[in-house]
């Protein structure tokens, strides 16, 4: 076995920690998204934060995976995987929101400063 040179050792260390940081960020955003799903009031608001898991959560995790694979064919797969996640995620989020709208789920809306808006809101809530 060939002794690794010091430069290779440092590069490996940098890569190791970069992978750790990327995975950590991925886990962090997935956690935030979970907290959001639990805390937010209605289906529309939850759909926003659910997409965080797919965008940055999966994004950072897959970036970490690509880095761990290094310069080889499998790394290309992770990029493709991310690409398809980015195409399917908004489609699914839109489908959920739209079906909620179509089944008549009323969104929880903030009280606006303008009078006509708040009037419309309260009217929506009393019904």
């Amino acid at each position, binding site marked *: 076995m060939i002794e690794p040179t010091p430069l290779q050792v440092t590069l490996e260390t940098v890569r190791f920690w970069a992978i750790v940081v990327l995975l950590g960020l991925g886990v962090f955003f997935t956690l935030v998204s979970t907290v959001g799903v639990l805390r937010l009031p209605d289906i*529309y608001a939850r759909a926003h934060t659910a997409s965080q898991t797919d965008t940055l959560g999966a994004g950072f995790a897959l970036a970490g995976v690509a880095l761990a694979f290094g310069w080889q064919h499998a790394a290309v797969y992770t990029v493709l995987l991310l690409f398809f996640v980015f195409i399917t995620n908004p489609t699914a989020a839109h489908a959920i929101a739209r079906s909620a709208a179509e089944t008549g789920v009323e969104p929880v809306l903030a009280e606006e400063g303008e009078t006509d808006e708040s009037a419309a809101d309260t009217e929506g809530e009393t019904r």
Partner: protein
Amino acid sequence: MAVERLLVPLSDTVTVRQTVGYAVQSGLERADSLECHLVVALPYDDAVPESARQREDADDLLSRARNWVEEDAGDADVTIETATLGADEYLFGPRDYAEIFDDYAAAQGIDRVVLDPEYQPGVTARILQPLERELDRIGLAYDEAPVERSTRRGRLTGSEDFDRLFATFMVSYGFYLVLGDPTYWFDLVTGAAVAGIVAVSLARVTFSVPLDRVQSPIRVVRFALYIPYLLWEIVKANIAVSAVILRPSMPIEPTLTQVDSRVRSGLPLTALANSITLTPGTLTVRATDQRLLVHTLIPAAREDLFDGGLEKAIRFVFYGRESAAIPSPRERDDAEIVGGDEL
């Protein structure tokens, strides 16, 4: 002496010449004297950069159509009026077209509308059927010109179909080789076979709009430029939303907004709606024609949406740099906060 007044909406199609011919012929059969109103409906208003070019195209089409009518009319008593409609408003869908035709018809005392079966105003998809439904609803009499369409198919099929087949083949072959091994002969052969089957069976489904040999590759390059911008927007929005969610007081301000986007239906609109949904904080709930109903979670996301950064970027991808420089939805009054009743 009876006068027949006809309204003929024109668009630059292969069948427009035959439509004009039919309008003149059928009009003169019904009455001795014909008043032929040739109109072009402009889909965009003046705020959009390409409206100037569209106006020139419209004038050009109208002057050509005027010559056709004169040619077909011969000695008969035919008066020709030309007009461009919808220059001061943005036309969203079949209903808007039907309404401006109805306004014009009421003002000019039109008896009948003669429609080109391929009628396609602006760059949107063909709208004949929904337009006819709207005209039925409004109660404006119309007539679809019987035209021979075989000429169109015969003439354009060759190169258009080849482009679609070629593009589908190359995309699927490329994808196959990325998944496989581009240096292994077995993958090269099976890839070609699979891509061939995919191209033959799916080319028409994949590309519903004819490809342009110069523009389409440029769009792909521009789309590649768009991806880093979109990723940056996603990261920014993610951090903003995460900060709001993690704060104990959770200062969210959910609102429903309605944005009239200025991109064509189909792929550009899908790209825009999906980009909006992909950035946390904004979620497309509905898309009707070019009108998007967007749920926003925090004020910052709403401001970004009203500033129209993504819309400009999508316009850059599909129409080029000059077209990207349009006023933001807020400036052109196309963005508003709506109540929950709009769902």
